[in-house]
């Protein structure tokens, strides 16, 4: 079980969180102009690095706020986190 540091509530069990996937994936500025392939790339394609990975988490069983965290996918260490709006 991961111990995830919520920026508001402090370290909590992974079971209290909902995973939100890769962070900083921007919504396309003009979705209608995208080809099917580009749209599919936006919807489904994500990085899968070994090492530092910025991802979104929601503290569903606590304060229910979204935040970003940088997790090392090799060691599961959470190195940084930031509050998002």
């Amino acid at each position: 079980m991961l111990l995830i540091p919520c920026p508001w509530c402090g370290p909590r069990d992974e079971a209290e969180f909902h995973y939100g996937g890769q962070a900083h994936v921007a919504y396309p500025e003009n979705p209608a102009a995208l080809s099917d392939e580009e749209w599919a790339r936006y919807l489904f394609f994500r990085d899968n690095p070994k090492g530092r990975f910025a991802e979104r988490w929601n503290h569903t069983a606590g304060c229910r706020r979204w935040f970003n965290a940088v997790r090392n996918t090799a060691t599961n260490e959470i190195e940084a986190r930031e509050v998002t709006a």
Partner: protein
Amino acid sequence: MAERLSPLARFTPVSSGDLRIAEIPFLTQINLRVDPKSRAAADIGLALGAPLPTEPGTCASADADLLWLGPDEWLVVGERGRDLEGTIRAAAGTAHAGITDVSAQRTVVAVEGPRSRDLLAHGCALDLHPRVFGPGRCAQTMLARAQVVLAARDGDAFRVFVRSSFAGYLADWLMDAAGEYLGVTPR
């Protein structure tokens, strides 16, 4: 006339020298969402007798209990039948704020006595040591896999706010876990 039944109406309070468990039904609960830096937040704090706590995981007690739920969210708890919503609405005026009566959403289980921390620790991953989670602390977390709001009060007393539909399950779980402190033979 229809009788109003609380979610744990059939739960018999238990008590021993070490532990007491009982429902506190029908408390008035208001969910409040407002910008903590706004004038309205200050006015609401004045009306309730204490400023809205802005440190995560803390609560304030005055005319009502003010539990921190999030950076712009609080649970205001008062005794049964009290018009807290009216008080808060009057204080907020026309300001941008969300004020919702959620009294029926959760019921409250009081867990008190020197063994209360031991009992809750059976199903809660939080550090409940008085040094970390003493009077005035509150937290939204999981107790026996049920979402709860835990509030520590003076002495070794806790209030466990649990959703009405989970209350029966949680009461059963508490009774099962409390067996060793109540001198009950396990079923």
